[in-house]
């Protein structure tokens, strides 16, 4: 079955720096990959979607890359702010469902 690993459970970073989160997967060839943000006690909020034929996608301070050969996605937050502190989830898309990783808890230190 498919396996999705996010690089670490927790990542601490200084305000203003770039945060880089990693998502690796095996036994799957997703049509697309998504990143979500989840705050404590809340549902996931969609951030970015990248398709298998796309290498990079940007939205404001966010950037996602997708390497289907390495089976890896990188998620970058530039000029990080304390308000970016949250858990970030990687999700692989099938026809009708999503498979999620366990998430990386990001803390941006002022």
């Amino acid at each position, binding site marked *: 079955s498919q396996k999705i690993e996010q690089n670490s459970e927790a990542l601490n970073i200084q305000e203003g720096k770039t945060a880089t989160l990693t998502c690796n997967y095996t036994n799957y060839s997703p049509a697309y990959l998504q990143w979500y943000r989840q705050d404590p006690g809340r549902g996931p909020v*969609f951030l970015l979607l990248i398709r298998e034929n796309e290498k990079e996608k940007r939205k404001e301070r966010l950037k996602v890359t997708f390497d289907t050969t390495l089976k890896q996605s990188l998620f970058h937050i530039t000029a990080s702010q304390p308000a970016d502190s949250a858990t970030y989830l990687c999700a692989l898309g099938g026809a009708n469902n999503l498979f999620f990783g366990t998430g990386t808890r990001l803390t941006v230190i002022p």
Partner: protein
Amino acid sequence: DAGVTQSPTHLIKTRGQQVTLRCSPKSGHDTVSWYQQALGQGPQFIFQYYEEEERQRGNFPDRFSGHQFPNYSSELNVNALLLGDSALYLCASSLAGSQPQHFGDGTRLSIL
């Protein structure tokens, strides 16, 4: 424009009982998916409903069942509750054939 709404927000049950959770999709969406999220884990796909039919199902036992109504709202039913069913249950809606999914804030189910 209301997003995905779920009720109740919290629920406490005992082992062996049955529970029904409810979801209203985002306006304009016709597809509803349900996920289970244990503490410290990512959401796990339970099933998806479209046109009042279960379209796809994850690796969950038959104790988990669902329903979709003509107005696209949905229910998740869990029978014979086990301690391991304690989790956050998330509902997500989308327009058929398109992404992304929009999530509600979930129902926190605790089994005693």
